[in-house]
Every structure is written in structure tokens, then in C-alpha cells.
């Protein structure tokens, strides 16, 4: 197992940027291209935003965990919340499905498009773990 970082974030709107910038710095050492780093930034933003808005219903007292792992040159991102959970994960992954007004419903679409693999494990009332994996294309 290579490099690792774990960030515990208050579920505040401003921490979406903190998570994204941390992820960009972490994967900056892994050989990703500039545009791949941009993709990772979007994917992490979507995951953290989902945890805050949907998982915790914007309750800034709660905490979101961002784990970054360099697993033999594969970036593994875990976004973990202990919020309300997702009733129907497959439905949540569909484009333009959203439970909150004024939202795009594109969070999972962007996450899966901008990573090589996406896994969502969720339990209603327990929380959600989103795992994203991405390898640098040039390696």
C-alpha cells in the first residue's frame, strides 16, 4: 500500500473546495495529466456535495470523511458519510434523478464518467460510502 490521506470534514458548503483541493494535491504526485486531475476534482466535489446535501440534509454539525489512497498507482477515493443513506442506489445513479429541488441530478453521472470505477454502498439510516478508482492514463 502506498501513500494515504484521510480528511475529516465538517459538512459545510465551503469544505467542498477543501476536499477537492486536497484530492488534487494528493493525486498530483501520481502521474495524472492536468485534465485527469480536473476530472478527479469534479468527481470529489460531486461526492462531497452529495454527502452534505443529501446525506446530512445540509447539517453542518455532521462530518464527512474523505480517504485518498495510492494503491499501486491506482487512486482510490472513499467518501464516507453517516447520513440518511440512499433507498434505491441504482435509481440515484440515473441522470437527472434528484430528490432536492434546484439540483441537477448529475452527481453520480459525473462521478462515474470521471473515474474508471465507481461503487456505492448505502444503507438507509446508516450512511453511504462512495468509492471511486482511477488510474493515470499515461502510466
Amino acid at each position, binding site marked *: 500500500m502506498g501513500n494515504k490521506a484521510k480528511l475529516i470534514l465538517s459538512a459545510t458548503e465551503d469544505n467542498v473546495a477543501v476536499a477537492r483541493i486536497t484530492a488534487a494535491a494528493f493525486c498530483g504526485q501520481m502521474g495524472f495529466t492536468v485534465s485527469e486531475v*480536473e476530472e478527479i476534482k469534479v468527481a470529489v*466535489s460531486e461526492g462531497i456535495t452529495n454527502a452534505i446535501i443529501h446525506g446530512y440534509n445540509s447539517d453542518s454539525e455532521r462530518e464527512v470523511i474523505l480517504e485518498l489512497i495510492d494503491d499501486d498507482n491506482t487512486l482510490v477515493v472513499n467518501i464516507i458519510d453517516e447520513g440518511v443513506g440512499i433507498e434505491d442506489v441504482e435509481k440515484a445513479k440515473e441522470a437527472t434523478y434528484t430528490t432536492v429541488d434546484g439540483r441537477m441530478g*448529475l452527481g453520480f453521472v459525473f462521478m462515474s464518467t470521471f473515474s474508471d470505477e465507481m461503487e456505492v454502498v448505502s444503507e438507509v439510516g446508516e450512511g453511504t460510502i462512495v468509492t471511486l478508482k482511477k488510474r493515470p492514463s499515461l502510466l
Partner: protein
Amino acid sequence: MEYNYERMTLTVFLTGDLDLGVCSSLRQEIKDLLKENYTDRLILDVSAVNFIDSTGLGMILDFYKMMGKSGGRILVCGAKATVKNIFILAGMTFLLSEGGRLYG
């Protein structure tokens, strides 16, 4: 936030990252500006925006819907490659313009 109002069109110059941290207050600021200037013609200049995610797109789509209801117009101009890429992925390129001219 910098903006100008001429020829019945409000141009807002957005900066920074259009994500959840920025958009919740920005949405209201732009709505207030539209109201103050009695216009429903809006150009969002994003040439100084380095990042946008689905929350930023959602805000822009909200304005688009708002304009549609009142017969107004909205255009997004100056998008950098990374920002443009997100618009393409979301199927929202119809909002983009290179020159920043608003017709109709």
C-alpha cells in the same frame, strides 16, 4: 462581484470556483441584480472561472428556467476548456457563446 448593465442586458463577471460553497449566495446576488436592473437578459461571463461542477450548472440552469418563464435570455460566455467540458457532458452547450452576444 463585478457586473455591468447596458442595452437592457446584465453582464455578470463570475470568478473562482462555481461549487456548493459559492453558489448558494451567488444565486441570490444575481437574482437581486436582475430585479434591481429590471431586466431578464443575462450574460454570465465565466472567463475567470476555473472550476464548475453540477451545483454550478444547476444554478445556471435555474436562471435559464427563470428566463424561459419571463421570455428573457441567458448566455454563458468565455468558458475555458475545463469548464466547457462540463457543459458538454451535461448537454448544456446551447447556453455557451464564444462572442458573448445576446440575440432576440
